[in-house]
């Protein structure tokens, strides 16, 4: 049976790639907030909130 997960370590030499990753990761919270605000405005969020 083939493994589901294969792990490896790599030394990065492609700086353009690593810079692109870091730049993209830094925008995650902004995108998350946009989705959250839109869900709040549309009223979707209030319908999803579970009771504690």
């Amino acid at each position, binding site marked *: 049976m*083939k*493994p*589901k*997960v*294969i*792990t*490896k*370590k*790599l*030394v*990065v*030499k*492609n*700086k*353009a*790639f*690593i*810079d*692109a*990753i*870091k730049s*993209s*990761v830094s925008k*995650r*919270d902004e*995108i*998350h*907030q*946009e*989705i*959250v605000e*839109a*869900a709040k405005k*549309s009223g*979707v*969020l209030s*319908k*999803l*909130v*579970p*009771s*504690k």
Partner: protein
Amino acid sequence: MAIYEFAPGSENNSYVFPTKFGWLYTVTFRNSADYFSDNGILFNNSLVSEIIFTRSVLNSDAPLKGIDPDVKETIQCILHHHLEGQGHLPLYIFICYSADKKEAARMDLFIKWYAAFDTADWRLHSYELMDAGESIYYGLIVNLNHPDVSVIPHEFEQFVEKEKSAWKELFRRR
């Protein structure tokens, strides 16, 4: 265990769900083919999606502490729901990198979730990308029926280990 109700988010291919612990999660499948714009195999006809999980506090109340098992169930359900409709040709990537230095733990958690999930013909290649004293944990998920499955991991490893600086890339594109 239960699954939280979720809904599509405003961003394409995104989902949102609140939890009873007081957190609000988003799961986004963001097109990330641009990472590989100069590599035909990895660019994959633009079928590359980055899986992003993010959470914030739901309201002004402090969230409850502890592990909420329903989050795992819900995220697995969203992954299944989304991947099922996309076929075997897309590549999926998952990146753990953050200022809080908890990325290794997050990747371990993702691997545990992934291993426990019925992933059918999907295989996760998990990489620790070492760069100047820090690590970025990177997952590449490829379907075993993809026509390039035998070359994609090797191509990715070469892509990462090939020296290329940002300014050279900028110059080349002009």
